[in-house]
């Protein structure tokens, strides 16, 4: 069950409606960890002084605002917290506007508003906003940041979308290619053709049709690589009638190998197959020489981790 990330009340006029805020979306971007390709160990970030290269302890790190190149004003956490917007636990609806008036560009992140112990006034507001087709423009504070938000009614409940502030939207004329469009003329014929083309592709918006195919492809790739060495088939996925006795399976495989050797009897009198890389570090930083017996022979290098059919799964 999702957890509420904020609770408070919607406030407009003299009305107060207690609500909780839930995230309306779960981002499904595939996250990767950075690894050292030679050892598959995790990469760690270090905080070092740009001047001396030495480690900077956490308690010595302060915030600085760059005034001019190299000139900083240091601002302490105490000073900042004194400025924090007062965490009034209200979503203040200042006005109601028509939905079409708000350009989608303003919408940032969507949340569900759920009633907090008082469902009736919540439902009343949701239904009334639905009937009037109005959107409440509101302000509220969450985690020390003041947000602009749109509150609207959808399928009998309320949703809130945080919005970007107008001064956060870049001026399109600052993009030269867009500014140059002003001087171009279009003929009526061209315009008709373009409209016809659009009409021919017109459809109802069905969001279910669209998937993040890149994410799906990445997940499938990971799944395939992981299963290359995943040894325990989930019980449900394995077909019982295909499970064979270990020795029976191996005997067939060994017999096949012996048969292959008979066909190529010359195999097998070469020189030692020393691994290609000798100096390397194990996943935990131990050198090859330390780890294995006969380290002095330099017999076992480590190398860019596993490629091929038995890839290394990330350990996190």
């Amino acid at each position, binding site marked *: 069950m999702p957890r509420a990330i904020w609770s408070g009340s919607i406030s407009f006029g003299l009305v107060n409606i207690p609500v909780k805020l839930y995230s309306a979306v779960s981002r499904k971007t595939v996250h990767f960890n950075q690894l050292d390709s030679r050892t598959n160990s995790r990469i760690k970030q270090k905080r070092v002084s740009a001047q001396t290269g030495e480690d900077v302890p956490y308690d010595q790190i302060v915030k600085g605002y760059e005034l001019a190149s190299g000139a900083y004003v240091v601002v302490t956490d105490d000073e900042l917290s004194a400025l924090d917007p007062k965490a009034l636990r209200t979503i203040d609806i200042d006005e109601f506007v028509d939905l079409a008036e708000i350009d989608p560009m303003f919408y940032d992140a969507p949340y569900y508003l759920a009633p907090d112990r008082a469902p009736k006034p919540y439902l009343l507001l949701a239904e009334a906003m639905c009937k009037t087709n109005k959107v409440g423009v509101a302000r509220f504070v969450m985690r020390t940041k003041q947000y602009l938000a749109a509150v609207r009614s959808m399928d009998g409940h309320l949703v809130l979308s945080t919005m970007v502030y107008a001064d956060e939207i870049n001026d399109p004329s600052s993009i030269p290619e867009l500014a140059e469009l002003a001087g171009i003329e279009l003929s009526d014929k061209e315009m008709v053709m373009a409209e016809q083309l659009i009409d021919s592709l017109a459809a109802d918006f069905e969001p279910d049709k669209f998937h993040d195919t890149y994410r799906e492809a990445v997940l499938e790739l990971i799944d395939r690589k992981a299963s290359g*060495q995943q040894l325990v088939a989930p019980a449900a996925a394995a077909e019982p009638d295909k499970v064979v006795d270990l020795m029976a399976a191996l005997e067939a495989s060994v017999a096949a190998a012996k048969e292959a050797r008979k066909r190529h009897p010359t195999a097998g009198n070469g020189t030692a197959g020393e691994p290609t890389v000798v100096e390397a570090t194990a996943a935990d930083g131990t050198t090859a020489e330390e780890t294995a017996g*006969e380290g002095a022979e330099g017999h076992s290098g480590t190398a860019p981790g596993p490629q091929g059919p038995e*890839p290394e799964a990330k350990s996190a």
Partner: protein
Amino acid sequence: MAEATSTTVHIEGRRLTLTNLGKLMYPEASFTKGEVIDYYARIAPVMLAHLGDRCVTFVRYPDGVQGKSFFEKRCPGHRPDWVRTALGRGDRRARTAADRSGTGGIDYCVLSDVPSIVWAANLAAIEMHTPMARAAKMDIPTMAVFDLDPGAPAAMRECAEVALHLREALGSLDLELFPKTSGSKGLQVYLPLNADHDRDHVRSFALAVAQLMEKQHPNLVLTTMAKDLRVGKVFIDWSQNAVFKTTVCAYSLRARSRPTVSTPVTWEEVEAAADGAPLSFEAPTVIERVAGMGDLFAPAATLVQHLPPAA
């Protein structure tokens, strides 16, 4: 290149999916991954005595012994839930303050049953290396090892000579030694302890013995790592007894051109090797030897011997 196939098998009530059984792991010997797993499945019942309760370090060769390899100490996160793990020693050379504070341990695999060994073999963990101590008592080595590593033109013959000198020296202290091939070029001579000697005691004893050998046989024995001094001599690597070090486990395959095994041998075989007889065994032979001779290395896990008191 063998086709990518997988076979789901039952072994001791566990279900495993084995992959790419036809893949050539030792191309020069035409020895396949199926044969590697077959070897480990057959040797597992005797290997368990030496491997089963220790943190294991894998040397994995996903593309065969001629391909790239990597050490794996941390037990893979995708292991089946029945593969045991134990918190073991991390890196001696801790790189950060957090590591140095002592919390930087590693969860090692502990291959405590046949299915676990087969699982590791299927990961192309061709070599399995173990420390001198069991996982339950990391500071108490159950044995000491003298790793005899020949510097060309010295070879197995010289290693066997040194092993016989070691046997004689420690025999005078009523301590029995057990030799095995490294599976590579050298010999490894083990001193079972199975007593509560701490690691510093064991390590200093091993160093003293090695230095005694060097003093008695200066033209044959070397106790320093420097490779350029090793020409024609045998390096006694006593430092393998350090707690953070591992040595190839008895019955582990080695990633050489042919599927040689770190094979326990008899002292008669070592004597013959000192006379020039070859002393190297490949996986199928090792299975036959164990069937006929039993586990020559069994005393390493059980024989209780006490070192002279530390000075």
